[in-house]
């Protein structure tokens, strides 16, 4: 008997998303929607493509438009077309695509839409059931809306950067374009809320996502510190016991922790530094008072441990120690492997490797990567020809006009 694979029904199957713009925030937003089953069509400028295609690092450090690692990661499970909305023929194709779409996700800076038909007011008026999510650095309104920004700038404005790093050095950026990932997932949350509401009302909505404000929403401590008591919360102090901080172990860094509900003696026993068995250290106030003494003992004790062995031993004792893992550790992590976090993805230009997969696991829903990131215009024939009914000659003409 031949096992026949029945395609699974995913939560957003049947929802069509047009993704316009590029870089990180809108593509990540659309990728998340695609992971939940949406049919995402990525629209790129003919001959140029998403600017993420020119973002490093590259496969083999070769700056080729199909070898950008951020691009490859951000664009799985999507189909890709090209069109130039500034041409008449391109605008007509875009109008047809908009007519078939449920959601538009875009991240053009305010006032820099490439065509009048992409203005939010126009879309809301002519496509009343469409959900339009616009992701920008500062949002569509407010005095900074037209400011120039990159990831370090949005992170600085968000308040997050001020609290990152050490108090005796400058604030430290968190790398890997995190502000735009956080904006992307917040955009997906708002889009899903709008889709759910549309099931009841039949109406579309416009969504204004501010990258700065998405990250600022992390500040559930620093903001009330000031609004409740006038205090300014800073970066981690250079003095202290070393608990809940990165500390050197024999082969790297670990985070010893006193959190959770285990007694001090469990912590002291695990680290097995005799000096730590001291009742003065058992309370939080004691660990503040004798912080420097504890710090020296921790340095001695942790130097006897390899980080993975300590993490394992901590977990077995119901303690919550952490460790600094690099990309190689994570790629090979036995826990992530057993949870089937990775998916092998084959790309015609970049090659085949294991990609990190979806964060949550949902019952009855198998996360799949059915497509690698699209080549520029890879699905022009499929979408413009098969779906929108353009003939082979028509497609050739569109190409000649520079419309696609």
């Amino acid at each position: 008997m031949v096992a026949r694979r029945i395609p699974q029904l995913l939560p957003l199957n049947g929802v069509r998303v047009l993704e316009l713009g590029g870089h990180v925030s809108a593509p990540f937003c659309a990728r998340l929607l695609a992971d939940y089953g949406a049919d995402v069509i990525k629209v790129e400028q003919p001959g140029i493509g998403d600017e993420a295609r020119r973002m490093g690092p590259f496969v083999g450090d070769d700056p080729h438009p199909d070898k950008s690692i951020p691009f490859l990661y951000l664009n799985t499970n999507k189909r890709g077309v090209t069109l130039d909305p500034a041409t008449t023929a391109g605008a007509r194709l875009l109008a047809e695509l908009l007519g078939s779409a449920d959601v538009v996700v875009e991240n053009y800076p305010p006032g820099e839409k490439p065509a009048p038909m992409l203005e939010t007011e126009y879309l809301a008026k002519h496509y009343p059931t469409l959900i339009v999510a616009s992701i920008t650095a500062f949002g569509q309104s407010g005095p900074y809306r037209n400011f120039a920004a990159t990831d370090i700038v949005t992170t600085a404005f968000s308040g997050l950067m001020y609290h990152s790093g050490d108090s005796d050095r400058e604030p430290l950026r968190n790398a890997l374009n995190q502000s735009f990932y956080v904006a992307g997932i917040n955009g997906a949350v708002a889009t899903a809320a709008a889709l759910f509401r549309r099931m009841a009302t039949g109406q579309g909505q416009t969504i204004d996502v501010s990258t700065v404000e998405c990250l600022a929403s992390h500040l559930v401590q620093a903001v009330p510190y000031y609004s409740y008591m006038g205090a300014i919360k800073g970066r981690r102090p250079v003095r202290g016991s070393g608990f809940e901080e990165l500390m050197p172990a024999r082969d790297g860094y670990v985070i010893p922790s006193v959190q959770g509900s285990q007694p001090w003696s469990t912590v002291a026993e695990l680290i097995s530094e005799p000096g730590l068995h001291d009742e003065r250290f058992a309370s939080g106030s004691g660990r503040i008072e004798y912080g420097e003494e504890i710090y020296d003992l921790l340095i001695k004790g942790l130097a006897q441990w390899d980080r993975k062995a300590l993490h394992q031993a901590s977990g077995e004792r119901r303690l919550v120690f952490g460790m600094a893992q690099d990309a190689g550790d994570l790629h090979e992590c036995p826990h992530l492997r057993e949870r089937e976090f990775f998916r092998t993805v084959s790309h015609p230009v970049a090659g085949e490797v294991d990609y990190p997969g979806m964060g949550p696991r949902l019952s009855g829903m198998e996360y799949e990567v059915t497509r690698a990131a699209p080549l520029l215009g890879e699905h022009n024939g499929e979408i413009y020809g098969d779906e929108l009914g353009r003939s082979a000659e028509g497609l050739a003409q569109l190409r000649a006009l520079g419309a696609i």
Partner: protein
Amino acid sequence: MTMANAGRPLEGIRVLDLSRVFAMPYCGAYLADLGAEVIKVETHHNAFVDTTRTLNGPYPDNKPGDLYYERGGTFHTLNRGKLSVTLDLRSEDALEVLRRLVSVSDVMLENFTPRVMRRFGLDYPNLKAVKPDLIMVSNTGYGHSGPWTNFGAMATALEPTHGTGAFTGYLDVDAHGNTSPGTVPNKIANSYTDFLASWTAQLAVLASLIHRARTGRGMWIDLAMYQVGTSFMGEGLLDFAFNGRRARRMGNRHETLSPHGCYPCLGNDQWAVIAARDDEDWLALCETMGMADLAGDARFVDPVTRHRNQDALDAIIAGWTASKNKYEVMNLLQAAGVPAGPVLDGRDMLKDPHFRARGYFESVEHEATTGLGRQEYVSRGWRMSGSDVRIRKSAPLLGEDNRYVLSQVLGLDDGKIAELEAAEAVGQTLAGAQTPSAVPLARQVELGWTVDYDEEYRK
């Protein structure tokens, strides 16, 4: 659907929030902002109460007071808009009340370890029997399967475990001031992983609500914070898979852009960031700094030489910013089209004209006994046209809605409710509580927990 509720996306959805600390409570708060009725199921026993009620503060004027567990600013941010019912789950009667609540709810959020939920019989298979189309998020450090499944976790230790420290860290500096790639991992502030888990859970719940509306089927969401965090490190993991690169710590610098950094400004711990995307930004920066000659300097003529000579370049820029207010740096450079901005702290954010103009902070009036008055909180990074999405009310007092939940939602009679109260299965006063002592702000400054404080902050 009536016009009155057309604007609340989650009108009519009931959420049971059994979760504690940051990630899932914040998810519940957002679902409340979206219009769901969110019932925080907690306990009035000090040993098991949500620790953000008792350990986090901050308290008004740094004074915890007798009702400190109703007065913490972080708790209020994370639990706004919810109702509170106290159920001591060690009591079989309280467990039965909870099961009945599940049967009339749509979504449940919890972050106990897998062991605890099984012990209470509150794992998904058991609850599915009570409510077949339940949507349930089980948020744990490492998830409900895999070799580390029973390991406890907290965000601040998880963060480098899922890789942030491989890509976040200062440059190493030698005795001559020359820099090289960093060898020491660092952290992102504010329990970063908690927030990634919160956004991820919100999306999963909303997708599941759509799925349920279309298929009638519920969903169990196994949310492992470690795995969620790793999914945000994708660029770094793929760089290893393709190129074998394990880590890349660049301080505030960038793979290709320069200058790109964080520079000191006038005042105590004041900073501004500047990032030049291309030659055009670079020329505008030189012009703005009044150093047009710099553009012709052989060390800085093109992106490649600038990138190679960043130590010298950063010293020159820091010399220019050091005599300026951080907002002045922003104004001068943004007027010239160069990406730049101040590194804002909590005070700056609350006063910043952009956040103000967009109404980012939303305020609510608090119950009189808390003495909190009207307070404002961080809201959301997005607005929806025509939707009534906002912080609806303050976080609840402990057990504030016991009567409503037991009597209105479940229809228990007064006798039964009195029985639960007499058995201490429900309660409104924190049992076994001890008012925490607050460390004076001046001492906090000495310890380095606090940079500075304003006596006159209410103005």
